[in-house]
């Protein structure tokens, strides 16, 4: 039973990381129709900035230091995302394939820049000592860092919910995901919502990047790739444009992957990929997605 809980919670922890990447991807695609391949680079930017800040904050990283690093990393990633959106994406308005292609270009350039400056090997991320301890949950000893991921993901989910439900920009985003043209037809410049969504997506990915670096035992430009792919898988299974859908799908996939890997090493990736193909063929709009016209 302990093993079951352990695998389950570490799976949820992994799912939390996927959700941090996926939430931004989901809204960006849902609202703007942009398949953002640069999202992985937001993750990497956040990771490197967070790493740099954590290094500056002294040899011992306290919980506060770590939170500051996460926040600043997220902020940097968010600003970078905004820059990409203003410089490149807006100029390719309604050219969706070209927008997707340009984000591919960005991911290559950012990967090359960071790889060139810092190398592609893993660099240790300064982590609070507490992360290395284990917490007793229902008889199973859970590594403390998993708790941090889950807590962060839950906070993001709540923050997202508050934004979407209780603010005007959230209202515009929800309406825009459903019908972009009609929002314009109500006299609202829906493109301003684009910038917001890109920034927030970047921020979430940046925070995710810091946490991923802890999980992967180091910072490197090469890590983002697989998280981006998993991010897409989560978004597609959860439903494009639905943040709760991404949360659900992320948790499912994290848990399934961990369980599959427990029985046969390496089976996890394979199972998830087959799951994606299956969902796409049976229910293309995903769990909570809407059927787009």
């Amino acid at each position, binding site marked *: 039973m302990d093993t079951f809980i352990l695998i389950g919670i570490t799976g949820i922890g992994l799912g939390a990381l996927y959700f941090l990447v996926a939430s931004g991807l989901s809204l960006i*695609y849902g609202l703007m129709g942009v*398949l953002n391949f640069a999202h992985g680079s937001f993750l990497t930017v956040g990771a490197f900035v967070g790493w740099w800040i954590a290094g500056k904050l002294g040899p011992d990283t306290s919980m506060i230091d770590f939170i500051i690093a996460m926040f600043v990393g997220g902020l940097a990633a968010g600003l970078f995302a905004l820059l990409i959106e203003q410089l*490149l994406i807006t*100029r*390719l308005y309604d050219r969706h*394939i*070209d927008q997707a*292609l*340009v984000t*591919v*270009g*960005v*991911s*290559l*350039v950012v*990967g*090359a*820049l960071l*790889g*060139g*400056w810092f190398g592609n090997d893993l660099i240790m991320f300064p982590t609070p000592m507490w992360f290395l301890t284990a917490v007793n949950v229902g008889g199973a000893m859970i590594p403390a860092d998993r708790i941090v991921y889950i807590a962060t993901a839950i906070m993001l989910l709540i923050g997202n919910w508050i934004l979407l439900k209780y603010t005007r920009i959230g209202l515009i985003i929800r309406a825009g995901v459903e019908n972009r043209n009609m929002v314009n037809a109500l006299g609202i410049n829906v493109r301003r919502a684009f910038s917001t969504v890109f920034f927030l997506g970047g921020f979430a990915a940046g925070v995710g990047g810091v946490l991923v670096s802890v999980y992967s035992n180091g910072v490197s430009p090469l890590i983002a*790739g697989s998280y981006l*792919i998993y991010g*897409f*898988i989560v978004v*597609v299974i959860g439903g494009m444009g639905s943040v709760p859908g991404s949360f659900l799908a992320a948790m499912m996939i994290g848990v399934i992957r961990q369980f599959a890997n427990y029985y046969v*090493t*390496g089976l996890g*990736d*394979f199972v998830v*990929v*087959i799951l*994606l*193909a299956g969902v*796409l*063929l049976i229910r*293309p709009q995903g769990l909570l997605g809407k059927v787009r016209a």
Partner: protein
Amino acid sequence: MLRWKYSRPLLGLLLVVLAIAPLFTNNPLGKPGLQQTMAVAFVWGALALTYDLLFGFTGLLSFGHALYFATGVYVSCILINHDVVSWWLAALIAIAVSAILAFLVGAASLRTTGITFAMVTLAFGEAGHVIVNRNFFNLTGGENGIALNAENVPQIWIGVFNTKYIYWLALAALIFTYAVIWWVTESSAGKVFSALRDNEQRVQVLGLNTQHFKLLAFVISAALAAMLGFVMLIAAGSAAPRFAESGVTIALLLMVVIGGAVTRWGAVLGGIFYSFASTRMQDLTQQESFKSIPEWIGGPIAEPALLLGLIFILIVMFSPGGLSGAYYRLRLKAITRKSS
């Protein structure tokens, strides 16, 4: 006429030069180093063309093309190494396996379109990558891949001094691929592919089963990719998981867009240019003069993805037709200027 009247004869001349040059040692192509680089570039050029059949001609954005290329590499390698059949039969079997795989995957995936199709193909492509990487059935050699057993392959392709035979094999494969794709796209089926890209509804209204045509393009492209996989196996001497990565398909996408998605020669040019530039840049970084550049500039420049990514972004933003598109635009300007 948009085509320059000298372009075809010049192209023919270029091909002859490329074919003959390795016979003489006094020119750059007489050296094994450049022969190897160009051989690999030819394979990538041809592979880019197979991808162009899907993306540029039929409008299918696939993110899992590497799967069929890797199938060609791995199936040939495994069959040859285990001495199951002779080398050429191994290649043919690899092509057949890839075609069947494409048929199955295509039949399933082509029920979706657009972005969903891209994701499904990505999924299948990743599945292939995972199989190869995790050494399932202990056949695929895991992360390190499998070295080709040189004894079971014609000795004409083994050894540094025989590099020119690999070069000729690759050049022949490129010409063959080009011929097949030219024939397919110029045929009546090919016209349907282009029509599909532009407006699928109109094709359906004509009573044509669009699924069948898309599947046809998919299978042809996969079969050719597998053949090129075999050629790459000979050129590289081993099967490796990097041939199955999504990065391969992304690279193909770059090649096709940089070269120009709608033209055949554009895709080939994009592939050759990309491959050549990557290899050359890696060589460049080894040289002394390079080491004197400050680290913060030199580091990133050493990564081929930087320059190629920047070129790619610029082309998507300002010249979506790629290099060949720009060429035809200049030709149009030249022609209209002449007539005015």
